[in-house]
């Protein structure tokens, strides 16, 4: 027995309000997740694309005066090719190419007009490719054990015998995932935006681009909410976190593969056969020629979660303008989120129901 042991003593003090109890679950989860060496490495890696995008902002804002340089033209071509798959990218790149040929003052005016779209394109590129993939990896590291370990260790009653509701428990667990996802999406995007503003010639850019921070927040929410709901649902379905992890990665990978197979298959079917030459001498066909001749059929977005997210994010950044094209993806994501939350709620309340 410790030398300072004084037996039992009561406690007097002010308790925190009920509304903030979920925050305790969240901070505890964040702290435990942070102990993962791999997560810390991944987060570091996740900021590397932000630096690349920062270079994009820097070039756009600082090298406007030397746009006529051949090197700048090459950079623009490269950028155009890199983002050609993005919605509205062609018109933005074309606009920049056209601006190159204008006299300095007119060029500056034209580039200022394009600024919103260029920034949006850069941010969407950042959201879609590097962060889209890293999101899957990071959530796959954090989320699977969040609820499954509580199932395995029967820790539910520790939570629910306290003044905590099932909703607050889920919110606390979701906040753990949100925190790390925001660290790789919303936070770097907002930092990029501020970086862009600081590099701009004057603060009038804020007037031109004031909506981008809001779009960043909405796009982050669109990324965060369905993915977290899905990941936590998987975690709540098993007491073995590795199974939850397998399910999580499978959904994304299988969706992506299905999208690619269906898209390629449909594109080939739609392509007019040139007297059987394609089938017989496929190796001799110039791929570039096919791509240029046949635009990729984009009808299979709804089989892949990541492609649905990308589509909706494109709309949020104002680059995907056809609402009817985005609506099915948005509705599916919404239904999926509701379904995941419903299952989650049922699973979490199950141990205390009987």
């Amino acid at each position, binding site marked *: *027995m410790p030398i300072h042991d004084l037996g039992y003593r009561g*406690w007097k003090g002010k*308790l925190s309000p009920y509304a903030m109890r979920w925050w305790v679950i969240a901070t505890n989860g964040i702290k435990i997740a942070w102990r993962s060496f791999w997560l810390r490495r991944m987060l570091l890696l996740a900021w590397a694309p932000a630096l690349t995008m920062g270079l994009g902002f820097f070039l756009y804002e600082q090298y406007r005066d030397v746009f006529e340089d051949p090197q700048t033209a090459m950079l623009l071509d490269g950028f155009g090719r890199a983002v050609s798959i993005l919605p509205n990218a062609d018109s933005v790149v074309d606009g920049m190419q056209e601006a190159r040929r204008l006299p300095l003052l007119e060029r500056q005016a034209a580039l200022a007009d394009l600024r919103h779209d260029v920034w949006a394109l850069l941010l969407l590129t950042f959201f879609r490719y590097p962060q889209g993939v890293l999101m899957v990896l990071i959530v796959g590291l954090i989320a699977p*054990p969040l609820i499954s370990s509580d199932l395995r260790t029967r*820790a539910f009653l520790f939570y*629910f*015998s306290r003044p905590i509701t099932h909703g607050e428990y889920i919110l606390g667990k979701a906040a753990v995932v949100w925190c790390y996802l925001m660290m790789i999406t919303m936070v770097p995007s907002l930092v990029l935006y501020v970086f862009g503003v600081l590099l701009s010639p004057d603060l009038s850019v804020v007037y031109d681009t004031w909506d981008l921070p809001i779009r960043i927040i909405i796009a982050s929410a669109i990324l965060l909410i369905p993915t977290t709901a899905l990941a936590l649902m998987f975690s709540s379905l098993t007491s073995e976190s590795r199974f939850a992890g397998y399910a999580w990665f499978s959904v994304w990978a299988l969706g992506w593969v299905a999208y690619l197979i269906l898209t390629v298959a449909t594109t080939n079917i739609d392509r007019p056969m040139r007297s059987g030459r394609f089938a017989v001498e496929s190796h001799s066909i110039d791929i570039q020629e096919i791509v240029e001749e046949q635009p990729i059929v984009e009808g299979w977005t709804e089989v892949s979660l990541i492609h649905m997210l990308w589509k909706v994010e494109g709309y949020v950044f104002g680059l995907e303008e056809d609402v009817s094209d985005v609506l099915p993806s948005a509705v599916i994501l919404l239904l999926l989120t509701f379904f995941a939350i419903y299952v989650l709620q049922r699973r979490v309340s199950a141990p205390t129901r*009987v």
Partner: protein
Amino acid sequence: MNYRELAVCYNCLSDFTMAKNPLIHLEHLTKYYGAMRVLDDVSLEIGSGVTGLLGPNGAGKSTLIKVLLGLVRFSNGSGEVLGFSLRREARNIRANVGYMVEDDSYLAGISGVEMVRFVARLSGLPSIEGLRRAHEILDFCGIEQERYRNVETYSTGMRQKLKFAQAIVHDPPLLVLDEPTSGLDPEERERMLSRIRVLANHGKAVLLSTHILPDVQTVCDDVVIIVNGRIRLVEKLEVLSRPASPAYQVRVIGQPDALISRIQQENIEVTVAESGVITLPTSDETVVKRVWKWADEVEVGIRSLVPAKNSLEQIFLDAVREGKSANT
């Protein structure tokens, strides 16, 4: 001042647990799981002190505890815990009750002190104060340097103490302990019971659900027996222990036969239990004094000579039997 008012000054609650209002008040409470009635018209009042909740497996003890904590909804009836309505104020109830779960449960990936601190924070204690309080309670529960080890490496006994620590970390006025001594060695069991007694002396009300009847006899003031979802008995342990007719019990060192013969020579009828305990059906103290003399004559050492008490085990078995026959 009632408990509702006391809840405003939550920390004063423990000072008032000796108040006359029942801490737990249930009226005609019924709970169904599907078509099965697991709590059947339960009406109960539990006051301060330590109350033992006894019942065979499947009697409805765990369900009753979950209902008391507002974790499961009941079908009919009404109830209050610490003055809070079971239906509408379950959250306030849980804020003022410390619950020690029966299952071998813990929070993975953290140390003992972190776990108790975490639970303290869930109960509303500020972060730093939660840590201080966690250390204080772990000292009280006898968890020393092990508190810095990951909970997953704890033995069953250590986890049991840790569960007890998390139940009392926020200094609740009412404790619900589900099998607190299971998995403990005799020495630790003794310590756990003494901690419960210490808490009761600090004015905490304790509801102790257990299968271990000697534990109940050691620490409880009152006993509630539940069988097949119905309350079969609510009584003070002192009253239950009192035999129907006064008697004395004699325990001897070695064989009691010589002493029994000697007593019978005096035309006193005695009953002898299998354990060798001799029961004298008398309240006459002169007879009792003479027993010492007779023992000396036949050279039998007396281990104890005390007023007889009813066996809790027998009371429990009778209640269970009655409950089962009432159902059939």
